[in-house]
């Protein structure tokens, strides 16, 4: 078997999320994900190295010790300039996507891991049979249906499926990742800032809407985890 695990092309956002998610055993989610074969485009590598302080500022809950340098960076394929025009937004995702396409062209089993739903689209909405939210990169992503797009939740499911983590750790990771995303949801942060300027009723309703969205996602992934468990316990 040439590959034990597919190569996981990870963006900066997922990297920081996963390093921020601490599990009950003192390890971070990233400590397990790094057991997979990870790759980063040069620009994502640079983002991780240089933008650490920006992330730190934004995600106030990220502990200092996660800000470590990484050494693997892959050359951007030649076709990148023809595929994308350079803009200020989603640069990391675009370079990672070119890298994923180049790997797939060589027949390498890969997954593209990103938690930036505005770029990759919202896979959860698709599950909910709502209108599929297409991200900025959807057109390109859909043109190359040769590899899977993962969020960190999918990554947790895979880690459990391949028995890299136990069921309890996987469930803890889902809960903690969900909690992290809720607390750092831009809408929730704004709502907390406006707490004293809006009525209790409005605060309660808006908070409930947000909680419902995040609760449904958590329930869904916990359900997936239980279905995976049926295979593992056979």
């Amino acid at each position, binding site marked *: 078997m040439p590959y034990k695990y597919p190569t996981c092309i990870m963006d900066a956002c997922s990297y920081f999320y996963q390093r921020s998610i601490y*599990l009950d055993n003192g390890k971070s989610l990233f400590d397990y994900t790094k057991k997979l074969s990870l790759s980063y485009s040069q620009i994502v590598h640079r983002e991780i190295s240089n933008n650490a302080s920006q992330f730190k500022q934004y995600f106030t809950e990220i502990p200092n010790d996660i800000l470590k340098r990484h050494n693997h960076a892959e050359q951007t394929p030649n076709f990148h300039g023809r595929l994308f025009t350079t803009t200020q937004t989603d640069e990391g995702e675009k370079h990672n996507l070119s890298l994923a396409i180049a790997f797939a062209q060589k027949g390498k089993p890969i997954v593209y891991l990103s938690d930036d739903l505005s770029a990759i689209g919202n896979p959860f909405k698709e599950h909910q049979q709502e209108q599929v939210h297409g991200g900025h990169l959807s057109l390109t992503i859909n043109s190359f249906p040769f590899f899977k797009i993962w969020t960190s939740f999918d990554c947790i499911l895979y880690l459990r499926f391949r028995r890299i983590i136990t069921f309890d750790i996987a469930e803890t990771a889902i809960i903690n990742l969900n909690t992290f995303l809720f607390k750092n949801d831009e809408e929730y942060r704004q709502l907390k800032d406006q707490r004293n300027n809006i009525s209790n009723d409005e605060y*309660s309703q808006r908070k409930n809407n947000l*909680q419902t969205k995040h609760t449904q996602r958590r*329930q869904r992934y916990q359900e997936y985890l239980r279905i995976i468990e049926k295979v593992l316990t056979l």
Partner: protein
Amino acid sequence: MAITLQELGLLENPFEYTTPTPSANMVWAGMHQQKRDITRCYEQAFQQNARQLILNWGPWGGGKTYAAYYFKHNRIQYIANYDQVVTIYIRTPEEGEKASNELLNNIIDAIGWDALKNTIAQNAMLIGHDVLEQRLYDRIASSEFARAVLKLATDTFTTDGYLLAQYFYNGLDKKEKAKYRISRDIKSISDRIKFVSALLVAYTQTQAPKRLFIWIDEMENAIFYTAKQAKEYAQTIRDLTDTINEYVAIFLNLTLAEADEQKIDLLLREALLSRINTRLRFKDFSTDDTLTYIRELLQAYQISPNPQQPYSPFTEDAITTIIQQQLPTNKRLPRNINKTLHTIIQNALQEDKTIIGVDDVKKTTTIFA
């Protein structure tokens, strides 16, 4: 010039949609099943001494908090033994950090240290110091905390609950510990649970023990604790239930639009799931439920109730129109109904209408498009 509510035939606007204000005159409208189920839990507390853990779940605005307030403040109306009822209402903290400590502090705050001290001292006098100490020991299985609670509460040199509070929050100094013959400090969360349980048991021990009802609202906040914090919080509620063990019912209010019970189980920790013995669902109203709710609420506030015009100042057609056009089926919940009817009544006052008909209803912009 706007008319007054009295001219509309109402004592007050019945449809308040903000968080209820606790008062002894709260009205329970519709939702007969839920009221029956909760009343049964209260009655069971008197028929069987065993502890109860009850999960109330339903959508936002479905009446769970209102139920808690109603049963806390209107106790005289629903049970014969109302003077034997002690109801405490607290909320689940928003932040998971130290949520367990906050939960215990909130329970104490809901009664107050002075009330705890004075009532426990009275109870000790009423049933005897030794008998009370023995009862405490039987329930919480800690002779140290049983003695500490009684020594500090029955101390005759102080009249307030300062000593108890000091011991709970900061610990006593060596001199005080020697004076009250207390050798153990409150260190762990388990110690805190035992001490709070001892306080609650002592507080409710009269000749015939009172029944303790604790409503923990906004349990959905715990869904957004980290796994570790949520586990600790659930264990604290479980340990508190197990330690008090008798004459106690804990209601957990969980806001969740989920209809599938199994999916709820995904969100609650095993520590709680294994102890929950009753589940009460607050759900969206049917058309009949909505009519009953509106009618009963209006009747409670009509200055001269008239069986011929149960919906006064609304006409029956106006109410049917509201339900059909302004309240989509998935929005038929007390809070939404209140919001809609509150607005219509306010508009009628502005326009000097003494009867609210179909045309008046249609003029009001639908809140739930």
